[in-house]
Each structure stands twice: as C-alpha cells, then as structure tokens.
C-alpha cells in the first residue's frame, strides 16, 4: 500500500492532499448525492466509496467540438468536482487541461492505455468526422476515428460528453459536410453513456462519474443510453413556468406584456416540451438560472437534430422536402383545399356523366309517387 501510494491514491486522499478539510469532503458527498437523486441514507456510501476507491484512470479525448463540455464541467458548482474528480488528479490525458503537451502528452496517454488496459474510462467530447478519410480532425497526425478506435479498445466504459459525441450536434447538421458521426455509431462493443446537451450540465457530468465510483457500475440508462436520473423528464415537466402553460397564458412575442409577466414561452418556439434534460431542476451556473428563467425558450440542445428542427422561435416548423417556409398546417390547408376542389369537380362531372341514369331514376320515382294511395 505504501509503495503503491505514489501511483494509486484514493479520491479521499487526493481531496485531503489538495487542502480540503474532512468537513468540505462530507459537504461534497452530500451535495453530489443530492444531485444524483440518492436518498440521504446513501450519503455514507458515497463518502465511503470515495474514501476507499482508488481513482479511476480517465482519458478525455477532444475531437470535433468547441470544448464547451469541459468549460461547463470546470464551472461545476462545487470546487472538488473540478479540482479532484476529473481535473488535476484524475485526468491522465486531456488536451486542454493537462500540463504536458506534444510528445509528452501522447506518451502519457499511451502509458495509461497500456497500464490500465480494461480499467480506464474513456471520455469523448466531440464527434468523429468520417468524411474524406477523417482528415477534418487530426491530432498528433492521426485521424479522430483512428484515435477513438485505439482508445476505446482498452476502455472499461465510454462516456460520450455533450451533443457532439452523443448526437453529432452542429457539425452533423444538414448537410453535414464532414460526415460528423456520434460515438455510438462507431463503437459498438463497449458500454456507452450518452450525456447530450450543448453543453451538458456540469453537475450532471460530475454525478455520473461519482455514480460510477460509488457503485462500481454504470448508472441506469434509458433507451437512448442516457442516465435516467437526469434525462427521464422533459424540461417542460419541471419548468417553473409550467403553471402558465396549464393556464393557457402564453407570451405571443418576446416584447409583449405577457413575456414581461413571465408567461410560458411555448408559442415563441420553446422546445422544453420536447427536450429531455434536467435544466429545470439543477439549473446552470451554480443553480442561478436556466434559459427559460432568463426569458428565452429552450432550444432543445440535448435532443437529436436540434439544429435541423427549424427556427428556434417557431413552434410549427417546415417539413423536410416541402421548403423552409411551409409548415405542416399550410400544406394541410392547401391539400384540403385541393381535395375539396377536386371533389366539387367530381360531383359536377358525376351529375353530367350519369345524367341519363339519374333522370330515369328521378322520373320513375315521380311516377311511383303519383301511384301512391291518397
């Protein structure tokens, strides 16, 4: 143990070493357990796991992305998250945060991949461009696809951070010139946690990592591979403006009195009713606010294809193949008009074409009418 200590440290040892007190540590355990949606009785288990578990080696790859996921993460509410769980101590390789660069950095990654084969967690930020032999994203002279396959080989699990790695995000928006591809479409043989969002919430990211440390396995995932604890409800379902929605009070434009009164942004294109995320409960920037609270509708950044789902400020959007200006309702009205017109023409034509038949039937009916007993 003493010999190994220089290499292997528990999370608790790292935290104490960084100058945090035991009290800080317990506060962190309580805080993160609450974000993970655990009962208070589980706080002890979280603390115990952090005390006894050796840190999990983490390789954090950056491909086609803007680093907003990392930015979100290091701005997470509690300093222990950024200082210990993933930053200075745990990250064996991350382009943006590590001190080493160039050959040193690549050597560190190689060393981790060999030493902890089958043990390390691979975090991926960004999509992988497959177009033109993957030349759109190269690190150290090698394509992102090549690097991903190599790093995924020995990984215990893969976390796809953000919409880029989960869904492709803006790079994969039409016409997707680089053929940006999310991780799960390339790597099929490893457990993948998808954490969509542009960026995902820092506390959500920390919660997932701590869950893996505490319980030694992946958090419960939904059908799309997202952690249920954070992605099982729509933003709409936890929105503080929801009562205005149920009351039918909506902002009609962004500068009307309704918007000033804080009414629901449903009619100005809010994607909250179609977006699965925990912005309404966890919020952003240390729980200060989130888009809807700031008066702007949700843009649905954690949903697939959110860039291609039409203008952010319109609820009824164009249908693919019918031009950007035509909404489903416009097409429906035109189609109904055309059908109604066609039926009117048909009705007239039927009376003309079948006039003999109709005339004879009418005259027979009149004759029969005359034969009726008085």
């Amino acid at each position, binding site marked *: 143990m003493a010999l190994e200590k220089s290499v292997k440290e528990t999370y608790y040892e790292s935290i104490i070493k960084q100058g945090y007190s035991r009290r800080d540590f317990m506060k962190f355990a309580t805080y993160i357990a609450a974000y993970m949606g655990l009962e208070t009785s589980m706080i002890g288990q979280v603390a115990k796991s952090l005390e006894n578990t050796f840190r999990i080696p983490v390789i954090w790859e950056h491909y086609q992305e803007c680093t907003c996921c990392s930015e979100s993460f290091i701005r997470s509410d509690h300093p222990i998250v950024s200082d210990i769980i993933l930053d200075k101590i745990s990250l064996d390789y991350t382009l943006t945060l590590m001190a080493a660069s160039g050959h040193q950095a690549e050597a560190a990654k190689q060393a981790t991949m060999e030493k902890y084969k089958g043990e390390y967690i691979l975090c991926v930020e960004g999509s992988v461009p497959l177009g033109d032999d993957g030349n759109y994203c190269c690190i150290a002279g090698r394509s992102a696809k090549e690097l991903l396959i190599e790093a995924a080989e020995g990984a215990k699990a893969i976390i796809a951070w953000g919409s880029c790695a989960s869904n492709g995000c803006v790079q994969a928006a039409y016409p997707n010139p680089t053929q940006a591809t999310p991780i799960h479409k390339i790597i099929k043989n490893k457990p993948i946690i998808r954490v969509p969002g542009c960026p995902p919430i820092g506390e959500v990211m920390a919660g997932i990592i701590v869950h893996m440390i505490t319980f030694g396995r992946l958090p419960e995932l939904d059908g799309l591979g997202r952690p249920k604890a954070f992605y099982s409800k729509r933003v709409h379902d936890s929105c503080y403006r929801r009562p205005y929605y*149920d009351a039918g009070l909506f902002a009609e434009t962004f500068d009307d009195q309704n918007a000033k009164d804080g009414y629901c942004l449903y009619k100005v294109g809010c994607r909250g009713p179609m977006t699965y995320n925990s912005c309404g409960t966890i919020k952003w920037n240390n729980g200060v606010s989130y888009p809807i609270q700031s008066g702007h509708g949700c843009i649905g950044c954690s949903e697939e294809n959110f860039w291609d789902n039409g203008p952010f400020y319109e609820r009824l959007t164009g249908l693919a193949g019918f031009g950007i200006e035509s909404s489903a309702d416009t097409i*429906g009205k035109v189609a109904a008009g055309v*059908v109604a017109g066609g039926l009117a023409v048909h009705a007239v034509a039927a009376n003309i074409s079948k006039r003999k038949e109709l005339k004879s*039937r009418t005259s027979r009916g009149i004759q029969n009418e005359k034969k009726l007993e008085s």
Partner: protein
Amino acid sequence: MQTRKFRRVYVWELPVRFFHWINALSIIILAITGFIIANPPAILSNREASDIYWFGTVRFIHFATAYVFFFNMVMRIYWSFVGNRFSSWRAFWPFNKKMWHNFLHVIKVDVFLANEKKPDIKDISIGHNSVAAISYVILFLLALVQVFTGFGLYSSTASWWLPKMFAWVVPFLGGDFIVRTIHHTTTWLFILFTLIHVYLVFYHDWLEGRGEVSSMFGGYKFVCDERLKQLAEDEEIEAPVDEEAMEIIE
C-alpha cells in the same frame, strides 16, 4: 322501363354503428383539441394563473378522448372476428379475384365516371366496395400511427403501464420533435380522408339511392331482389309480414 324490387338487408350491426360514430366523434374532438394544443389561442385574463386551467383541460380532453379512440379501435378489431361478413377482417383484405374485379369496376365507374353499356347488378357492393375497403385499411394504419406517436409522447408523463408500453417510440424515431411532427401531420391525413369519405357516401346515396347515408344509423341497406338466393321460399313467409317495410318500388 325497368322497375326493381328492393329488399332491406342488415349490413352494419349495432357494434359497427357504435364504432363508426364513436370513432367519428373522437376524431373530431381529437383534431380540434389537437390543433388547439399545437397553436393555443391568445386568451388574456386578469386572474391569477393558479385560478385558470383551461389549457390543462383541453389537454385532458385530448388524452381522455385518445383512450376512447384507442379502446373503440380495439373493440372493432375484436368485432372483425365475430361480426357478420361485412364487418369481417376478410372484407378489408381485397386481394382475391372477386374483389380485384370490384376494385377496377369502382375505379372505372365511380372514380372516372364511365358509363357501362350493360351494367351488371353484381358490381354494386352491398357492404363497402373494394376501394373503400383499402381506404379503411389506410385509415386503420393512420390510426395506428396516431396511437403509437400519441402514446409515445404521452408515455414520459404517464403513470399507467399501457401508455408506458409506447415509450420506445420516441427514441426509435429520434426524439419528441419528429414524433410530434408526425402526429400533427397525420391529423391532416385524417381530415383529407374525412372529406373524401363523406363526399363518397353522399355520392353513392345520390346515384344509387339505396340508403347509403342512413345505413350507418339504422344498419340497413336496400339490395335488389335478384341478389338474394332462395327468394321464392322466403317471400312466402316474409312478404306478408314486412310488405310495407321491405318492398320499395323504384
């Protein structure tokens, strides 16, 4: 001039009529509430939001009617196995020779309005014709689309296992946005169906005069004598009893 005798034939059984009108009514309610949900009218009020719940009520009506629509459809599927020949599932599977012949006849005579030199009385359908049968199969598929996308959207806020069974639809299609778009667009296909359906019912009633419209209320249609087998024996028993009601002279 030829004068035909018509006989009353029980075509649409009571469950079928109930299905038809419950279905029609629920489609109307679902379409209206659906369009309100998609684009709610701007109703302003001075009252506190906590005192108002009209939009929640509209959504409740939509969801409640969706269950009526769904179980009504389940009942109709059951009836297609126990009902008469006109309501049987076989009537909706127009892939035998006889029905194919009828299909072409309807396209020719009723869609393109051609006049036949020698009209064959057997070409006039007693239940629905083969083209109509196909349109109902399409309507059934559209209804399935609405059931799957509707319950899929509803599933994440549902507490009952039935809508929860459709939770896979949303990830399968790629997210709430596309599911919602499909749900909304399909509503318009229902409207187009309704336009054509209602027109054709009036068309047949107008041109054939066999009680096409009223058949969905009373269940009877009027069918030429020649179409009935063993007419002679039946007539002795039935004719004196039902003389008034059964014999309409054209």
